């Protein structure tokens, strides 16, 4: 695959490009999202479900 000697190296090569794309797309889609603005709507602790642990 892609001239590589084994599947795992080819997978790494593809994942490198894929994860970069993920960063770019996520950054563009959430350009103006700000957690601070969401805080007054949801009480600060509501997003934490760790207390049940």
């Amino acid at each position, binding site marked *: 695959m892609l001239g590589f000697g084994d599947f795992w*190296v080819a997978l790494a090569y593809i994942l*490198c490009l894929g994860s970069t794309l993920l960063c770019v797309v*996520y950054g563009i889609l959430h350009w*103006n999202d700000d957690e601070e603005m969401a805080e007054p709507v949801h009480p600060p*602790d509501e997003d934490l479900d*760790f207390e049940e*642990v």
Partner: protein
Amino acid sequence: MNYELLTIILAAYVLVTGYLGWLGYRKTRSAADYLLAGRQVHPLLMSLAYGSTFISTSAIVGFGGAAALFGMGLLWLTFFNIFLGIFIAFLLFGRRTRRIGAALDAHTFPELLGRRFGSRFVQGFAGTTIACLMPLYAAAVMIGGARFLEVQLGLEYQLALFVFAVVVAAYVFFGGLKGVVYTDALQGTLMFVGMFILLVATYSKVGGLGSHQALTELASRVPPPLAEQGHRGWTAMPALFSPLWWQLVSTIILGVGIGVLAQPQLAVRFMTVKSGKELNRALIPGGIFILMMTGVAFTVGALTNLFFYQTQGKIALAMVMDPATGKPNIDKIIPTYVSMAMPEWFGYVFMLSLLAAAMSTLSGQFHAIGTSFGRDLYQQALAGGRHQERTVPIARLGIFAGFVLTIVLAYNLPAGIIAIATALFFGMCAAVFLPAYVSALFWKRATLPGIISGMVTGLLAWGLWVLFVHEKESAALGVCMAVFGKTSLAAGTKWAVVDPLIVALPLSAIVTVAVSLATRPIAENVLNRCFGGSPAGSPA
């Protein structure tokens, strides 16, 4: 060598760097400016600063050289660097770190841990660990820069090392983080340009994308001793569970890949931006930047084998035999490749981008050493929060001490050490800080005794494994030989090649959780101060 061209390029670079450092110095008015750049940094600047602090000569020269040895399996580290080191780090860790850091008015990574659990001991312990062990990583970065100067300019290694270190120390010393963030952005840009040219030039030299196939076919040239240890060519992973596989996967890929999440000099960058929005935006340049740095370094590193084979009839390792020891010095593979394969002008440009890479990382490291020493150990842990005015002078004293220790290490560490020393430090950070850091951000049930016992267990387990079991270090350090008369207690078994991280991180995590669950939870009102809406920047 074209001395005039070189002098002009270097002089321009030193002047601009000096100017930016001075600009930072002039704008550094408060301790928050010195420690956190005033919490107002632009996302592009922040991500370039994060990226250029993360990536250094260690990543490019040291790990690039390791890729020439292990092959493209190192690309797994690039994937971890981008997915964990950027995506997860910015989104999960970055947001929380920024918000809790601001709510608790934390100025440093140890202070974040200390205030979250209401303990000056935690802050002092974390600060001391960082200040004492960071020079190992800083030395690896310095060696990377000095090796390049040695090959490219034919300079004496020791002299190059010293001059270079003095310049870095000077501007970190005066500029604080504001100066560091400005120069980092310039350096990040330079690194990007240098690596981009290197990528295009290398692929065009060795035959484009078809070169992957050619490199695969070179597998028959793997030296027999390496093949016996599991090497299966430069485009395949080493044989599963072979000694080389353990070294590649446990030390290099996991050590650095996971360790990045708990790097004090990187975590502090999250506290320099104004809001979570900036972190989303910073993902874009951050992801592209890391791909362009480690992705290119590791691909080119592996492809140097093809280049050297096509032009010299030898693989990369055979090009860098050290006449004194008779062993290859993998730290010299990338410098040798650039000086032989690239035109002279590119050698200078690339040298500059490497200097930039080293300077930005070293400045972040020395900044972390200084603040650990001045703020965490002295002002908070020892002086009990008094003598705020002494933070910056004592941080500067700490930078000086860390600088001296780094130079001593850089002169004394053996050849081919860059990737190993870096991975060791990253692994240590993961073992000692990661469970505490994750708990601080996400787990309200974590308690102070849990955090302290987890951190101490992590450090002890990591330290004992380095001294007595992991043969690469235990043999070099000699403590095991002195006490037990052998290089490693596990000599001859698989355990001798298993990285300290693999043992120390799970132990530290288990102890953190178990002790936390067995002790009384932190009071709700204390937790609310960390997680619940205390306005940004207000004191704890």
